[in-house]
């Protein structure tokens, strides 16, 4: 099966705190076609996010599609509250990197 790197389809891939206890991951697509291809492939799901972040699936709070913004977003439990001992990223703004490697399978 053919795959397309998510970075070819997405305009924005980012991470940020959603309050001090959650980390939210946004993928915003360049166009409707890329958004729909990715949704249809089903590649972005709780198992994928759990694997990409080395966490158990129950730490993935939700995965939401937001067609108005051509976006798919996933929210996970922060490993620790923002700024707690052992913190590595207070704003949570550099936790998006594993998403850059997603490959979207395309049925031809």
């Amino acid at each position: 099966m053919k795959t397309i790197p998510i970075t070819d389809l997405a305009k924005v891939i980012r991470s940020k705190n959603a309050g001090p206890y959650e980390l939210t991951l946004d993928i915003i697509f360049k166009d409707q076609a890329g958004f729909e291809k990715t949704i249809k492939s089903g590649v972005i799901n709780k198992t994928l996010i759990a694997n990409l972040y080395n966490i158990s699936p129950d730490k993935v709070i939700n995965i939401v599609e937001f067609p108005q913004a051509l976006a798919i977003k996933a929210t996970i439990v922060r490993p620790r509250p923002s700024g707690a001992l052992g913190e590595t990223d207070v704003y949570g703004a550099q936790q998006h990197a594993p998403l850059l490697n997603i490959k979207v399978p395309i049925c031809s």
Partner: protein
Amino acid sequence: MKEYRVLSPTAILGYGFPESSFNEGLKYQPDVIAVDAGSSDPGPYYLGAGVSFTDRNAVKRDLEIIIAAGLERNIPVLIGTAGGSGANSHLEWNLDIIKEIAKEQNYHFKLAVITAELDKDFLLDQLQAGRITPLHPAPELTAEDIKKSTNIVAQMGIEPLIKALDEGAQVILAGRCYDPAVFAADAIRKGYDPGLAVHMGKILECGAIAAEPGSGSDSALGIIQPDGFIIQPLADNRRCSVTSVAAHTLYEKTNPYELPGPGGILSLQNTSFEQNSDKAVKVTGSKFVPAINYTVKLEGAKKIGYRTVSIAGCRDAIMISKIDEIINAVKLRVKDNFQKQGYNYNLHFHIYGKNGVMGDLEPTEATGHELGIVIDVVADTQETANTICSFTRSTMLHYGYPDRIATAGNLAFPYSPSDFKVGPVYEFSIYHLLEVDDPLKLFPIQMMEV
């Protein structure tokens, strides 16, 4: 119903904005100028210590321009979450700046100061009464958390702001505030749809971030019409697109369809976005759904100790290949050395180049050819933190790990002194919802003539 216009100068008071953009916004004859000054994003320190994450001179510069424009046009100026976190000390800090500007410019106006800090005894009673619930995934609140917190604030909704406007405030300086509230309060007071007003506030609170290119240091304008609202940036080189505005709606939120706030939920199930002009986007269909029980969000932080850090680098391939064992050995050496003293401390190593940014979330097992090492110590006292950091640094510098060839020293220090005394360290201790009977009661308004 005529159009209602809100000018948002900048994402955070003190982040600055070009005067050209702000003046462009004034040409639209805005009904209010509103600015959000706060965020919990910079972490627990600022709420806990009661200090601002923005600089005083930068805040004064922004306020000089904003207040002058508001007074000149006789339109209200609303400032939300004063001083970054909105506790009483933050409010006083910002009030002092406003008083200084008024004195220098010989302004006289009616100022409302609205506090948002909560009394611990009151909160302990509320906890006992079962009126405080955690915001998942925050843990259950304990009485100990309340007692240990240095500052506890509640996020006010639009109600106290409306009351201050009714009492004739020309400038409102509010403590911790739901971010969209300062943008929405006057519009809702004048009968505009709360769903549109709050959603518009949610976008405007970040200045021109919802534009392309986005910027938190630039101005944006929101216009409420009978059937929707329009968002547009004010600088020539920016434009709002359907995706840039829609995408901002989901920014920093768990669920973009339901955005909870004081007294209800902003529902975006039926929201649509359309290009209204080359630069502007029109949003329709956003609804405010009042909650059965009015709740406000509580935020608190507690002091957990004092920090000392030392920053170093490592370029030796043999040391890098053994870095995990070296860290463990150094930790044991430190522990053993001060066994008798019984120091209470937390020693943590940030290893940049090896999971330094993502820690446990890191899925990739790759190591850089050089490592950045931050020795991070938090202890009960600054003196203990200094002792542990210093001893860890010297132990690691000279540690004779197996197969070592470079015997002169294991670490490259960019600075002398090598250790930094950071001072007090805080942790978030409260992130909960409190049920209230009256949305005004927690937020006393003080009216003053400046």
